[in-house]
């Protein structure tokens, strides 16, 4: 009896363990499915703002759901030390946005990261000086403010590429170093700090500005990334995410005011207080401008092999990377033709 009871208990326990295991496995294997939708953990590389309007629109308008996705947004805070690339590497999130160069350098250091969509076709970085500035060489010996995290690869490249010493002053709170006169210049984004500066000190003369898009450091920036592991297991999820994102961005480009409504709604729900619609509108305009390629067309095409090779060579030449990542391993874009047509949403 005891033996029988023990056997029964053993079978029940075994079945329970198997059932739990199957549940867990099933949930893991389906990419954390929620009903009929596949759950995706998405992390933009900054706090909620118009920089990510296309993704907000895709979520709000149900484009992700149309593609069978339940996308969960994970934002970072201004003072957070969380890095989306680290989060992706640690498997905390499935898809992130990041700068192309940051992702590439991370990949050369062994990080499992793959570009699945390029939303920005040119560099938004710019140097704004307190005095007139004709070339990057003039930054020599200057105190130049820069974000403490985010684009240190470019900072290193500029320093080594120009062969000058720049006293980079990292900051984590924005433009006040420049406003208070604590630095000679500031390296900032055209869609963010530059607009903040103009709303704090007024219009800045062009002769005090160098835009990276006009220099040899014009590297494409924002794009979508995931890990090759995720891609191997859920290629259809990655493609669905890309498709919904492109659809969202195209809608935003054609519906500026409505897109801003969505952005402001996300800001409010995320308790982002120190912003306003005018600023977000200016940011959105600039982010949309950065989506135009050199031929003046809005493009989501990945970087070309030629440009990729140039960037790799530039970083290799300055010994900022010591490995070469194959183009096909860095860029995943099996939907190039469909992408060129905006997946039919243009």
């Amino acid at each position, binding site marked *: 009896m005891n033996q029988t009871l023990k056997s029964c208990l053993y079978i029940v326990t075994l079945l329970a363990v198997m059932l739990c295991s199957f549940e867990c496995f099933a949930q893991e294997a389906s990419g954390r499915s929620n009903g009929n939708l596949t759950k995706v953990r998405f992390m933009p590389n900054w706090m909620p703002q118009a920089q990510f309007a296309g993704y907000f629109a895709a979520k709000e308008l149900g484009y992700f759901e149309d593609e069978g996705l339940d996308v969960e947004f994970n934002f970072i805070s201004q*003072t957070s*030390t969380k890095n989306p690339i680290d989060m992706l590497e640690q498997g905390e999130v499935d898809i992130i946005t990041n700068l192309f160069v940051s992702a590439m350098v991370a990949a050369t250091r062994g990080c499992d990261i793959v570009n699945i969509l390029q939303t920005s076709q040119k560099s938004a970085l710019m140097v704004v000086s307190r005095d007139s500035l004709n070339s990057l060489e003039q930054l020599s010996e200057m*105190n130049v403010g820069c974000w*403490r995290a985010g684009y240190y690869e470019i900072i290193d490249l500029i320093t080594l590429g120009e062969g000058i010493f720049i006293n980079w*002053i*990292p*900051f*984590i*709170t924005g*433009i*006040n*170093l420049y*406003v*208070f*006169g*604590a*630095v000679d210049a500031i390296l900032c984004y055209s869609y963010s700090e530059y607009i903040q500066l*103009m*709303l*704090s*000190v*007024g219009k800045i003369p062009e002769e005090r500005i160098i835009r990276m898009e006009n220099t040899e450091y014009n590297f494409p920036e924002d794009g979508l990334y995931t890990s090759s592991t995720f891609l191997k297991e859920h290629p259809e999820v990655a493609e669905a995410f890309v498709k919904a994102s492109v659809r969202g961005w195209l809608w935003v480009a054609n519906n500026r005011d409505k897109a801003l409504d969505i952005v402001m709604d996300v800001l409010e729900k995320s308790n982002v*207080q*120190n*912003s*306003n*619609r*005018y*600023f977000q509108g200016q940011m959105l305009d600039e982010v949309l401008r950065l989506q135009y390629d050199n031929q003046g067309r809005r493009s989501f095409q990945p970087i070309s092999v030629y440009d990729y090779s140039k960037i790799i060579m530039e970083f290799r030449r300055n010994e900022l990377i010591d490995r070469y990542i194959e183009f096909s391993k860095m860029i995943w874009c099996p939907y190039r033709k469909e992408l060129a047509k905006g997946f039919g949403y243009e």
Partner: protein
Amino acid sequence: MSNPMFKIKISGNQESLGSRISFSVLAVAGAIFLAALVVVMYYSNSFLIEDAKQNVSNQLTIAASSIDHNLLAVETAIENNEWLVMNSLDDEEKLYEITRKIVSDNEEICGCAIAFKPYYFQRRYFFSPYSYVGADSLIYSKQLGTEDYDYQFMDWFQIPFLLRKPVWSEPYFDEGGADVVMATYSYPLIDTWGDVFAVMTADYPLTGIVDLVNQIHPYENSFAFLVSRNGTYVAHKDTSLIFTHTVLSNALDQGYNELYEAGLDMLNSGIGYREMRMKGEGNKYLSYMPLHNKWSMAIVNSDMDVLGRSYIMLFIIIALMVFGLVLLYIFTRQSVKKKLQPLVLFTEAANEVAKGDFKYALPEVKTKDEMRTLRDSFAYMQDSIVKYIADLKETMGAKERIESELRIAADIQRGMVPSVFPPFPERNDLDIFAVLSPAKEVGGDLYDYFIRDNKFYFTIGDVSGKGVPAAIFMAIARSAFRYIGASAESASDLMTKLNDSISQGNQSNMFITMFAGILDLATGDIQFCNAGHNPGVLISPDGKAEYVEVKNNLVVGVMDGFPFSGQSMKIERGSTLLLYTDGVTEAENSVKELYSEERLQAFCSNNSFDTGEELIGALVADIKKFTNGEDQNDDITILTIKLK
């Protein structure tokens, strides 16, 4: 008998005249009032704006001084303890004690830190003793720097560290702490080598300053606002702007250009006063002044605040002006109506005069003005009309007599030319028809004919001039034609004798153009003589019409003894000779175009008639059609002779 169509009605016109004069006076008075009002309002508003500017400036100065006083108190509290810190750099506990003491001794300070640069204090990466007032009003102390809070990258540390001078931070909301808006005063500590090694700070709640700013109300609708060094709103009546907008972003968002310009000046620590046009909010007046920490405070007044009294005054003045203008209109209208009252009496008088009562008594006018002049003119006109009518009656009588005599003369003249057709009904080889249509009652044209010895004597003529003299001359010529024709041997003989007869004793210098001829009814031979007259038209039996070629003899009556030369021709039976005076070819239409000899010839060629009567009837109709109702300006005479 009076004609009702011309009865004068002055009452309606008098009303409109009075109104027009009144409105004219009103318009001029209104324009003067308006101009005076504009000038008064301009200066009044200028004074009020200047007064408001001064008032607001005073309030700004007082408020700014008060805020600066508070800020300076915080700064002094930190700076006074600098020496204490410098003397306690190796004593951790002492440094904590200093921060606690600063917080406890200065109630306006809610937190104090001494943040050392990394690895300076006892080679620790972080060392920043910090004391603060907790939610329970007790003072707590802690180490500020942690892995999650690397203060060396915070503005409050970084900016004074780099600038090597004290600064006030941008305002921030102390979330999780005192839950109030705060600013931090940061004071760099510099060692003997001149390097900044730490930053002393004092956290200062801005609640008092915000309350002070919110309480500034120089006028009912005015408000004050405060912006930080980078333009962020710290205090504003619209709380949604606080920490979300800068003064520049708000200006750009709302499209307020003047606010943008003022904002730039505020960010550069400027002092100013500007007028701003706000959509849907009227004009605003912005006064601003910098604070000690390079923030800027401003007061906004609406134009209703500043110019409200002026608007009330404007309303009262306009009300009085309208009332005065209405009174002026009524007075002017009544006055004009009274002054124009005699015109009504004059109207009655005019109506009576029009009815024929030329002696109707005019109204008395006692004033010595234009109305008196009008009355005198009216009386003069009345006398003139009486006299004129008398003259007219006399003239009309004379005219009627003359017209009667003229009618008789016309009858006599018409009786002098043959007017019964056919004139020779017993003859079937001759068709004669003629018309004489004088331009006036009597004319100078003539035609005549008679038969002697189976020969048909005929003539047509046109006396120079018109009217009675021409008619008398025509009568003389016609009589002479009859008398001389009775014995003349040829047409030239007839014309020569006729000319001699008329020319002798012709004192009037009148003359006559004549065409005379003798048609042998048996042979169709014609002797004719033309004395300056229009050549006749010979219409052949086949319908062909041609002018008769004539010699250019002198006209009749100019010179006696002139030998007229005659001509002869032969006409076929069935031919018609059409003779006419220049009234036919010189008949004019409305554009002064002549009927012309060409048109006459064409008419004769293009039309075929059996009798002279038909021919002349059609020709007269054609001339009337051509002149299209224009007055006949010359006698028209046509004579047709058809040999059958």
